[in-house]
């Protein structure tokens, strides 16, 4: 089987747009690596360079320890699932799946066996004689997957394969893709801008921002220890609250000049950003002093009950924050709410946005 290794991979379009700026990623054999990031950050470009659909400006791409920079897409032994599926509209499902094998000159009976096996796995057998336009969105998605798996390639590449499905179907297919990938054990690279998809699918998560890798790691590690404010605000929903602070000898000063107690937190003189997840806050019952936590006074701007929990939107020191509380919200719009951030749940970032590990 195959590992995939990217070393200092760069992509410059024309000679001005640097879409990918020196990326290093090592993907182990059989792992599912998810590239996530905002629109335009270079995910697709990177994936297409692995596929051989886009030339590599600089650096090397290795598949199974062999440099593939100069190989065409057909020679890299990869298969790809596209966002719009890219099924051949004039071919039946069967022929769509068989086309790549035929081009490789595989004998007919073998092709037939492979196609039928793949169809079985994906429950497509009864659809083999249909054309793409006679299929539902979810079925087309499956055919696109089928076309990838019949090839039995070294690497699967997915470019936002679920973004054209409705929310419910997307959830189902996400689980199916994960299971299928486990079952087949094929190394995969999966591009998405949906952080939920990224979190649930990834063995290795790569968070990208404007052409560079911000952080690589296991999804939960990244969730728990985001390397930068960018990652912090991108992973998790609702995103982590970020509040700018500076320090003087009396404590911390928020953006609008409000003083709060430092509670033993050391903040660089250049200022810092403190981060805390909406679900990590405790609502103080009265005005009692809580030990070992930062206390913030929140002016409530609005409340969104969603059933099992409620989101309280408010401002602290001139910056917006969200608090998640279980069940019904204790406060209403216009109220003041005191919240406590337990020290161990507090994230601290420098003025440059980089994480400052706890002392």
């Amino acid at each position, binding site marked *: 089987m195959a590992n995939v290794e990217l070393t200092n991979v760069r992509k410059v379009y024309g000679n001005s747009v640097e879409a990918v700026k020196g990326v290093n990623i090592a993907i182990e054999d059989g792992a599912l690596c998810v590239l996530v990031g905002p629109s335009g950050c270079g995910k697709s470009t990177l994936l297409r360079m692995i596929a051989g659909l886009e030339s590599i400006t600089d650096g090397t791409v290795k598949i199974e320890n062999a440099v593939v920079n100069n190989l065409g897409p057909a020679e890299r032994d990869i298969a790809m699932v596209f966002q719009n599926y*890219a099924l051949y509209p004039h071919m039946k499902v069967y022929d769509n799946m068989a086309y790549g094998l035929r081009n490789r000159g595989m004998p007919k009976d073998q092709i037939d066996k492979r196609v039928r096996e793949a169809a079985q796995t994906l429950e497509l057998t009864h659809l083999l004689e249909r054309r793409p336009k006679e299929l539902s969105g979810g079925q087309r998605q499956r055919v696109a997957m089928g076309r990838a798996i019949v090839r039995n390639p070294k690497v699967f590449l997915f470019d936002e394969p679920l973004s054209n499905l409705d929310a419910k179907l997307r959830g189902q297919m996400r689980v199916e893709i994960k299971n299928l990938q486990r079952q087949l054990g094929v190394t995969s690279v999966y591009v998405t801008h949906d952080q939920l998809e990224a979190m649930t699918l990834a063995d290795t998560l790569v968070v990208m921002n404007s052409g560079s890798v911000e952080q690589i790691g296991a999804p939960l590690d990244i969730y728990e220890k985001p390397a930068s404010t960018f990652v912090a605000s991108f992973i998790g929903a609702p995103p982590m609250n970020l509040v700018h602070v500076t320090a003087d000898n009396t404590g911390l000063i928020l953006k609008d000049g409000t003083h709060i107690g430092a509670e033993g937190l050391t903040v660089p003189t250049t200022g810092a950003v403190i981060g805390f997840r909406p679900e990590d806050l405790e609502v103080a019952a009265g005005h009692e002093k809580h030990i070992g936590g930062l206390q913030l006074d929140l002016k409530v701007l609005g409340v969104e009950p969603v059933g099992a929990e409620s989101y309280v939107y408010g401002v602290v020191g001139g910056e917006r924050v969200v608090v998640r509380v279980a069940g019904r919200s204790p406060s209403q719009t216009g109220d003041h709410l005191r919240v406590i951030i337990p020290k161990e749940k507090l994230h601290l970032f420098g003025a440059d946005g980089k994480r400052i590990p706890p002392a």
Partner: protein
Amino acid sequence: MIQNNPIGRFIAHIILIIGIMIVAFPIYYTFVASTQSLQEIMRPPLSLLPGNHFWENYSAALFGGVGRIGGVGVDRLLFNTIVMALAIAVGKIAISILSAYAIVFFRFPGRMIFFWLIFITLMLPVEVRILPTYKVMVDLGLIDTYTGLTLPLMASATATLLFRQFFMTIPGELVEAARVDGAGPWRFFKDILLPLSKTNIAALFVILFIYGWTQYLWPLLMTNRNDMTTIVIGLRKMISFADADTEWHLVMVTCILAIVPPILVVMLMQRWFVRGLVETEK
């Protein structure tokens, strides 16, 4: 749906029927004339029902070795016309599908220049360059040849533009999927692009067949010999009102023979033709 009144609909039918009569009458009249004897034709008014000289006239025109057009039979003229219409239709489609393929699916220096060079030919119909074109044809020895009759008409900006427009609607991902599936430019063309263009090709075929069949100025210029000309030009040569010997009944037959094949093509391929025509000209 607004239910318009039955009287309005009735009037609509009447108007349409009158319209059809206007549109069909000249053709019907010629058909009627083609079944009359020369004497009957020369003595108007003609009866509105076909006469009883159908077999006589048609076999005379087709097999009678009619000497009216400088010793050339109608079969020869029909053959020339079919060659011309088919060659132009097929050649034009082939040539323009290839150049549209190059322009849309490849990037190469000079691409836009070539595109404009093709595009500008829209503005250079034969009519605006009659004499020099004739001279080029003479210099190349192409007068009275099938090559001369067809080849110069095979370059077409319209067909190229049509294919280009259609190709641009083909999603890029489809090309990439094909490349991942191991298809090079030729395989992609043959396995994916051609099958997807089927309807466009069919529509264009009808339009271009008619275009080739109905050419007038071009064969008029390019042919001197009667046995190399088309049936339309042949007909023109047969008609002479000054000449008392004009065998009008045979002229009528020839006329019908010149009209029927393209009408059949249009009728039989109506579905593609109508859609193609309306889409082509957008």
